[in-house]
């Protein structure tokens, strides 16, 4: 029986969770004891791990779940809308599949948020007191919005199919608006700690609005909004991969393969504009305080950006890899296989350029041979011009992979097919040459002009992507199909690539969260409230990496619980162990209850739609 087979998992999960609760409780009990150092009431200590690491992990976990809870409604709503407009039921089901993950995640977010608040109050009373003083009334709308978030979230989830589509879409829209507003308020608190504003020299409040609208509030809002979508897409894809690997029937495999594909598609689309949002954030940090900016980009943290380069290089590599493997499910994709090695070579070169540090780690002998701490050739790769060029080409390469995937089973029938291909190719060639030219040109001009060059680089890449897409749409109008997309026909390692993406996204989020908080160095509120605790030092990157790794592992453990609980809703009702009565009250026949030999419903397996294509089709039909 299902429940029996699963019960060890449930028990293990319960025990793990209980152990966690006990850990927290013992922690709380320990706080109760008067542990503070005499005369120092600003801090209490967390046993075993220390206050900072505890808050660090809890805050990061809270943030990860919050990001997921905010992101899923965004694309669930869009997918639902596409389903509503095109009348394709499968989109509706997909949106519901994503939404199923929400309710448990929402509770986890709230619980972790409460834990974070308790931690702040108990471990950092003085700092908390100050922040509460500054942001006094903003906590009220926050709580109110949280109520509304709960109402809209549960009505959106439980009301699936219960309301008219328009009402339901409206609920989804409200859920998104409320969620975004919650994030904006919370962002005000934390950005204030980085770039305090609206206070006088003594730290007394002069204007709450100025404190909220500090230098990096808006950049962080936008950056997080986009990053949340990327992160949510990646986790959604991981859920699809998890279900795919455990699927028993081809039909299930097809559905979850499709879900993973869509999640990955969302993640990569959201990843592409992130560097520009990050650039804006960086500029604002410099505008606030130059030494804060240099601490971030030029000091110890400069090595953190090498780690970041490794992570992002891996993201691009894995995303392309997944697309290449995906081509295996399309008849006719063999034609494009030979391009893979060139795309891979380009990605590898860009990856190498991006990960090349400016100051090298070298032994004395090596430094002597190089004539200093800079290598005469490698040096060229370590600066901004090279890295901007590399990231633009990485984006373009990923786009080409996607383009090849898109046209894998199509053959253009329009009369100008040859011409169209030629034009597309010329656009690519011109843009690549232009981007590389600007990159090289950057070495021969002064810094001010060099910074200005990144804009035409980005614009030309965007232009290439838009122009080629437009041509492609017309080129493959009424295209002859070589075969259908056989969803579900994909090797398991492609699903592991999706996991790899999800883990890498999560790790990246943890790392960037660390640098955002870490650049304050020995300040709680930069320049206003000094950190005088034992944890005031900035730890080594290796230590930070360990904390991030542990956080990621805990997050995935939690996620396993979320996935498991979300799967319960579709499970069969429990029944005694005797042979199940035929009138078992399941709403739909469940795959793992059916014998595997049952004939499957083949027709729905093939040809699951691409959301973008469906939307385009719909728009074309309209116009």
């Amino acid at each position: 029986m299902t429940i029996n087979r699963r019960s060890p998992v449930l028990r293990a999960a319960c025990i793990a969770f209980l152990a966690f609760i006990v850990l927290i409780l013992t922690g709380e009990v320990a706080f109760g004891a008067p542990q503070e150092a005499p005369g120092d009431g600003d801090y209490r200590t967390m046993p075993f791990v220390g206050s900072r690491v505890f808050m660090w992990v809890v805050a990061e976990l809270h943030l990860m779940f919050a990001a997921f809870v905010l992101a899923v409604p965004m694309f669930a709503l869009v997918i639902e809308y596409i389903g509503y407009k095109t009348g394709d039921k499968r989109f509706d089901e997909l949106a519901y599949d994503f939404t199923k993950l929400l309710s448990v995640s929402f509770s986890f977010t709230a619980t972790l948020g409460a834990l974070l608040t308790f931690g702040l109050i108990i471990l950092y009373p003085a700092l908390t007191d100050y922040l509460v003083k500054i942001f006094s009334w903003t906590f009220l709308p926050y709580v109110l919005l949280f109520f509304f978030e709960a109402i809209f979230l549960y009505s959106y989830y439980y009301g699936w199919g219960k309301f008219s589509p328009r009402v339901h879409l409206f609920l989804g829209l409200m859920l998104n608006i409320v969620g975004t507003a919650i994030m904006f308020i919370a962002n005000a608190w934390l950005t204030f700690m980085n770039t305090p504003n609206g206070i006088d020299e003594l730290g007394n409040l002069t204007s709450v609005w100025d404190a909220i609208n500090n230098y990096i509030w808006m950049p962080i809002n936008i950056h997080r909004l986009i990053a949340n979508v990327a992160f949510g897409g990646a986790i959604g894809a991981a859920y699809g991969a998890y279900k795919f690997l455990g699927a028993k029937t081809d039909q299930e495999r097809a559905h979850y393969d499709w879900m993973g594909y869509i999640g990955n598609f969302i993640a990569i689309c959201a990843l592409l504009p992130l560097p520009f949002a990050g650039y804006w954030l960086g500029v604002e940090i410099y505008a606030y305080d130059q030494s804060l900016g240099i601490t971030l980009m030029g000091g110890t943290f400069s090595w953190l950006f090498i780690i970041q380069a490794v992570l992002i290089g891996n993201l691009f590599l894995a995303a392309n890899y997944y697309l290449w493997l995906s081509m295996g499910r399309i008849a006719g994709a063999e034609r494009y296989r030979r391009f893979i090695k060139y795309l891979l070579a380009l990605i590898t070169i860009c990856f190498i350029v991006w990960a090349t540090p400016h100051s090298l780690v070298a032994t004395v002998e090596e430094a002597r041979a190089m004539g200093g701490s800079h290598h005469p050739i490698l040096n060229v790769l370590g600066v901004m011009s090279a890295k901007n060029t590399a990231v633009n080409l990485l984006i373009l390469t990923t786009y080409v992979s996607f383009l090849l995937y898109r046209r894998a089973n199509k053959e253009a029938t329009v009369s100008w097919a040859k011409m169209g291909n030629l034009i597309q190719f010329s656009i690519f060639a011109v843009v690549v040459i232009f981007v590389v030219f600007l990159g090289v040109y950057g070495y021969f001009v002064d810094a001010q002009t060099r910074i200005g060059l990144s804009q035409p680089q980005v614009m030309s890449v965007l232009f290439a992507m838009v122009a080629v897409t437009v041509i492609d749409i017309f080129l493959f109008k009424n295209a002859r199909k070589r075969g259908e997309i056989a969803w579900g026909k994909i090797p398991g390692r492609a699903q592991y690539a999706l996991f790899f993406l999800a883990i890498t996204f999560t790790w990246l989020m943890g790392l960037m969260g660390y640098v955002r908080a870490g650049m304050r160095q020995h300040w709680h509120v930069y320049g206003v409230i000094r950190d005088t605790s034992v944890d005031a030092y900035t730890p080594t990157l290796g230590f930070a990496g360990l904390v991030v790794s542990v956080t990621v592992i805990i997050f995935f453990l939690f996620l396993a619980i979320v996935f498991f609980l979300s799967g319960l809703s579709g499970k069969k009702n429990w029944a005694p162990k005797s042979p199940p009565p035929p009138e078992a009250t399941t709403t739909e026949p469940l795959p793992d209850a059916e014998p595997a030999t049952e004939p499957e419903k083949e027709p729905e397996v093939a040809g699951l739609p691409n959301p973008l294509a469906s939307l385009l089709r719909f728009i074309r039909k309209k116009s």
Partner: protein
Amino acid sequence: MKHALQIFGFTILVSAFYWYVSLWVPQKRTDPPEDIVISASLTTDEMIPIGEEIVAGKGTCLTCHTMGESGTGLRFPDLGNIGAIASERVAGQSDVDYLAESMYDPNAYVVEGFVAGMPNVSRPPVALTDQEILTVIAYLQSLGGTPTVTMDTPLQWQGQAPAPTAATAPDAPPDGATVFTTYACNTCHSLDGAAGAGPTLQGIGSRQTREEVTASIREPDAILVEGFAPGVMAATLNAFGFYDNVTDAEFEALLDYLMEQ
């Protein structure tokens, strides 16, 4: 179940890999800068170096004062020999009291030939604590004299809780004259034609347009009155946080005030 475990193993593997990457880069721990710890048990001799550090650092005293021959006595009196002459400045006032008064209530007595304008250093933006001021007195006494002050020396001004300055109070409409003194404009510029480190602003409203005055404040070095050094005004205004903190309303009030001159 098997694949769930496999996935979890994979998660650990990938996380461990990234941890390895973070160990591969140089490992540096950055400790916070050491605080000047002022404990009540300091001896007078120990107070001197701390006071010296505050004079050069947090106190920003050297923006205006000089210490002996190492600079040019431009704005405020040179302090190179202050320890020897402090007790003779004001009749009936001990050197400790005189130095303390000069910091808590600087304009009570102004050395002849100088313009009043030093801010109360126990208030923001400098905001020295009572203990810090004691160490500064010890240092100043040591310049040409023998320090007598201890950490326990009572001063009548001690215990004044620092309050936010009027200029940053949110409700009161800014007053140009207050802004003029808050950011220490009066330190260098007189309004009555007297000489100072900067040109006098007597009658500035009739000599220059509002735009010209705005430009001169925004970019002091763009047009210089002959005989005055570049960079001084920008540096001073920066030291008083003018460019960072002045609000539009304050700036307008300041302009109104200047145009009335």
